[in-house]
């Protein structure tokens, strides 16, 4: 894939599907015509640096795509919090997170209903509202930070190494293999800042869950409690999350340490898999708060069964991810990222 394809694909990823082919066909043609014109003028083919220069003049693909979109909605509260460039991604992330959260909530409530527990309308509404509030706050905060960063540094992007992938594209089934396969020259500062914020929120949440199991169990916390395994693995998980924050801070200062992040990713994933192994081995993940309650036993059984499926799925997914990361590390020649990145940064004056 040449630089033009990479650029055009990066724009495509940020466009609605209905517009995509049309816009991309025309944009691609425009870029290639400009390159041809320059080549005629110079009497020779353009070098990769010259092509990169032409593409950089066209601007950040994310911003360019936003100009084509008809949807120009944004979120403002006094000043603009999330602008039209990021708004569609914000909605995508929020819908995905809320969808997933409400699915989990629905499973828990169904399990409770099936086991004969009495559920009040108030319980359902309060749980849904709490989850809505948490998701809305966290996702909005992260996107507001990204928006600020984008407004401050609209030119902080790289033509090389995009390979048509966008960090904000949430087409998960397509994105995961593409992300693993791409040749990144720098760790994006957006990514580092987002990870710091997300991990900090996760740490705060984990601390609160210890004291308020209602945050994870919802109204079921009245008759269910977390099994001891969660308290046993609390510190390892906190340590891993804290280490991830440290890693993101290091990459914020040294975005060219891409290989460091790759090794670190394998380590964190392997450690995570180890933790999942111990969690699976525990065999029970929730328990009845009052051992005498008969109907609760059935609820506990159903929820534990759901936990087992989820944990096994997580373990398989982690195992595959580790394998892919290791293969990628082995295939990639050592030092490729570091030296290329320094060169690229020097050229771009970053």
């Amino acid at each position, binding site marked *: 894939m040449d630089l033009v394809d990479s650029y055009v694909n990066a724009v495509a990823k940020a466009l609605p599907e209905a517009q995509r082919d*049309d*816009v991309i*066909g*025309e*944009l691609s*043609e*425009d870029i*290639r*015509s*400009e390159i041809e*014109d320059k080549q005629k003028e110079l009497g020779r083919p353009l070098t990769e640096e010259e092509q990169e220069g032409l593409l950089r003049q*066209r*601007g950040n693909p994310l*911003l*360019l795509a936003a*100009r*084509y979109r008809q949807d120009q909605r944004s979120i403002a509260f006094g000043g603009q919090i999330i602008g039209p460039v990021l708004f569609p991604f914000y909605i995508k992330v929020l819908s995905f997170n809320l969808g997933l959260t409400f699915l989990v909530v629905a499973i828990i409530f169904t399990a409770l209903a099936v086991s004969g527990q009495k559920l009040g309308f108030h319980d359902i509404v309060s749980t849904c509202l709490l989850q809505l509030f948490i998701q809305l706050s966290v996702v909005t905060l992260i996107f507001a930070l990204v928006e600020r960063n984008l407004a401050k540094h609209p030119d902080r992007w790289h033509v090389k190494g995009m390979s048509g992938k966008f960090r904000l594209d949430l087409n998960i089934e397509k994105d995961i293999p593409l992300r693993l396969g791409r040749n990144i020259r720098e760790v994006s500062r957006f990514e580092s800042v987002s990870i710091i914020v997300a991990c900090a929120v996760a740490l705060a949440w984990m601390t609160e869950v210890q004291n308020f199991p209602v945050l994870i169990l919802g109204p079921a916390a009245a008759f269910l409690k977390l099994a001891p395994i969660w308290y046993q693995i609390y510190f390892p998980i906190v340590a891993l999350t804290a280490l991830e924050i440290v890693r993101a801070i290091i990459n914020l200062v040294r975005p060219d340490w891409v290989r460091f992040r790759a090794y670190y990713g394998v380590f964190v994933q392997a450690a995570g898999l180890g933790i999942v192994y111990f969690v699976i081995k525990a065999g029970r993940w929730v328990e009845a708060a009052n051992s005498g309650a008969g109907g609760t036993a059935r609820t506990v059984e159903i929820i534990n069964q759901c936990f087992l499926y989820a944990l096994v799925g997580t373990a398989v997914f982690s195992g595959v991810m580790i394998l892919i990361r290791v293969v990628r590390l082995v295939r990639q020649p050592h030092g490729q990222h570091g030296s290329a990145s320094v060169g690229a940064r020097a050229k771009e004056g970053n």
Partner: protein
Amino acid sequence: MWRTVCGVHYMTPGTDNHELFENLRLELRRGSLVLAVLAALRKEHYGYTLRKTLGERGMAIDEGTLYPLLRRLESHGLLVSEWREEDKRNKRFYKLSADGKEMLKQLLTEWQGINSSLNGLL
């Protein structure tokens, strides 16, 4: 007091005035771009040649502005477009529709009116 305020104001006029001028200039140009595009499309063009033509006539426009504008004008029925192969590449050619021609005529009359009014004022 008044002198100090004026002094401060005139200490940093360069960047402020330049920025203001740029904003006003862009605003002025933005209004004329539709007219320029419609006028250039009396003859059929594809995106890149249209951009070049406009640039050569002193109305340089970047593709992030031109293509969304072309789409908007087409959705209003002022332009018609078709994909055609030329030099072994697929290109989208635009030209004025019948409504576009009528609209251009009206806009030109309006523009000439504004122009003569301005000339009277200047």
